[in-house]
């Protein structure tokens, strides 16, 4: 049983990954009101693609420094995920933009199944372990330990999120995105190319998903074709928790969910006298999701709305 501080550290690390993925959900939802079910699969493909590149570079034995190898993995994974996101938007979502709400949700499930099975054909069913080329240093303080990898994950996530906030609030593209998310048709009348903005949202989301995929596979040391589903679901929960469509909400929701999971899994055994163990960790995300949707469907930071259709 680790101490409170330890759970806190683990929770924040996990939470920053959730937050990155949640941003992808929330941006797309904010603009076109679609739950992009296949977003989690982008995380998975990002992780597996980066892993293949890293493994290949290590095998080539060029003696490159670890940072360069990681960067190479990311530089392959990010464009790949962005390409997939654009294709997905173009083929499966754009034709359905005026359709009843259930239709794009079902195509999103279809896309998710397709990506998963393509990944299974390419990378196989087995688990891939992340090559141990990063020298992880562990720092001890106050009875808890923190690795430099954890620090790196949290720092990189923070930088990316700050960058995203800057783009959304300080650039013309961000202005157009905010306008489109408020009212797509009026933004179009003001000369905003809505299709371009939607594609931009998918692209940014996909890039963040790829980074999150690399982070999570490096952190847990493992990647497999099925990892995207649960991660995506949790990230979606985080987005809903914070208030879907709200960028700050996704970040807050991600961190909170990470903390809830880490603390919940750490303490559930003690709280229930050992009846429930940490194997119920995955239940927390769903309980939080259900509770939030019932009590406050617009999330913590979202606008108060009485009716969400």
């Amino acid at each position, binding site marked *: 049983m680790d101490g409170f501080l330890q759970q806190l550290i683990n929770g924040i690390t996990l939470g920053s990954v959730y937050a990155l993925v949640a941003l992808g959900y929330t941006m797309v939802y904010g603009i076109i009101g679609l739950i992009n079910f296949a977003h989690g699969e982008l995380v998975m493909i990002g992780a597996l693609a980066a892993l293949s590149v890293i493994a290949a570079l290590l095998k080539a034995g060029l003696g490159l420094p670890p940072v360069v190898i990681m960067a190479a993995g990311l530089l392959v994974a990010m464009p790949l995920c962005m390409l997939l996101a654009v294709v997905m938007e173009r083929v499966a979502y754009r034709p359905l933009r005026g359709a009843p709400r259930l239709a794009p949700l079902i195509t999103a499930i279809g896309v998710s199944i397709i990506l998963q099975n393509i990944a299974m054909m390419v990378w196989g069913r087995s688990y891939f372990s992340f090559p141990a080329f990063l020298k992880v240093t562990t720092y001890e303080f106050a009875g808890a330990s923190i690795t430099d990898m954890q620090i790196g994950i949290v720092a990189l996530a923070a930088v990316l999120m700050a960058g995203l906030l800057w783009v959304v609030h300080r650039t013309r593209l961000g202005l157009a995105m905010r306008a489109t998310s408020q009212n797509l*048709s009026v933004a179009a009348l003001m000369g905003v190319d809505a299709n371009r903005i939607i594609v931009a949202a998918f692209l940014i989301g996909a890039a963040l998903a790829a980074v999150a995929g690399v982070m999570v596979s490096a952190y847990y040391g493992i990647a497999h074709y099925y990892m995207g589903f649960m991660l995506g679901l949790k990230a979606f929960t985080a987005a809903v928790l914070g208030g879907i469509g709200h960028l700050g909400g996704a970040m807050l929701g991600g961190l909170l969910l990470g903390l809830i999971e880490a603390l919940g899994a750490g303490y559930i055994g003690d709280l229930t006298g050992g009846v429930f*163990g940490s194997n119920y960790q995955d239940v927390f995300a769903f309980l939080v999701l259900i509770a939030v949707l019932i009590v406050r469907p617009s999330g913590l930071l979202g606008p108060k709305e009485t009716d969400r259709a």
Partner: protein
Amino acid sequence: MPERRYSARHWLGVALIAAALLLLPFALAAVGQTWVRVVNLALLYVMLALGLNIVVGFAGLLDLGYIAFYAVGAYAYALLASPHFGLHLPFWVTLPAGFVVAALFGVLLGAPTLKLRGDYLAIVTLGFGEIIRIFMNNLNAPVNITNGPQGINLIDPLKIGDWSLAKNEVIAGLAVSGPMKYYYPLMLLTLAIIVLNLRLQNSRIGRAWEAIREDEIAARAMGINTRNIKLLAFAMGASFGGLAGGLFASIQGFISPESFGLMESVMVLSMVVLGGMGHIPGVILGAVLLTSLPEVIRFTVVPAQQALFGKVLVDPEAIRMLVFGLALVLVMILRPGGLWPSAVRKRELAERHGQGLPAP
């Protein structure tokens, strides 16, 4: 309803269909017992799809955790009729038990989610389905209820007195296998569910569901008790799932949480959507098509690959799922009403064309 008079030709048609349904297992058995099993499985999926159709098709509530009710029914049956607890109750207790417990779970899911609509409801039901599966996976300690990931074994088959439906035997000189015997109660129950669904659709309740699907606020304004009617949709849909689950447990003789993953929910939903949401013949078509698809693929893809490349390059299971995913996307884009939509739905889609957000 005005009294209808049926002609002799009508009754002849009914008699022919009945005879065909009665003889079907024997015809299939001549080809191979596998096909009898496939038909039985298809019947189970027809039940499931019709149950889900009540929730999704009639009432318009997207449920992505539907398989949880199938699981609950299966576990209810298994716990009451297996050596796990040493209980061996007869089928007329266990099957209704699955039915009732599943209906209760339907209300349990429905009650807190009444206010949610559309994609939010979809996500909550998905979470509910996962929660049920996680509990089934872990409720083997400290008290062993579900036996965890190992699942429950040696579940009793359907038995009438001492006459088990699972055994092969020779009746009046005809070899009758277990699956062939199971076919008859399955078909009977499926027909009963079909009739019930047809009657429901045109009843006061069915029209209320449809009203909620089209516009919940307007439906409430018309005096429909939307809360009760929605709960009823959840309970009825779930109960059919529970019944199918009980039958599944009895046929398989073994169940484990693995059979009740999200993919199964998606599969049943695909049947409803591909066939034609809210249209009973369409849903049946969807269920039959998608259940036979893997068999067809198994008999075509593997030999085709062997002929072309000399070995099996791509796993038929992956191909099946790929076809699934593609079918979901393509049908939604090309035929948003499904393969066999109801006449009303077809008209609506035609009218709706060109409205909504600006086209790309």
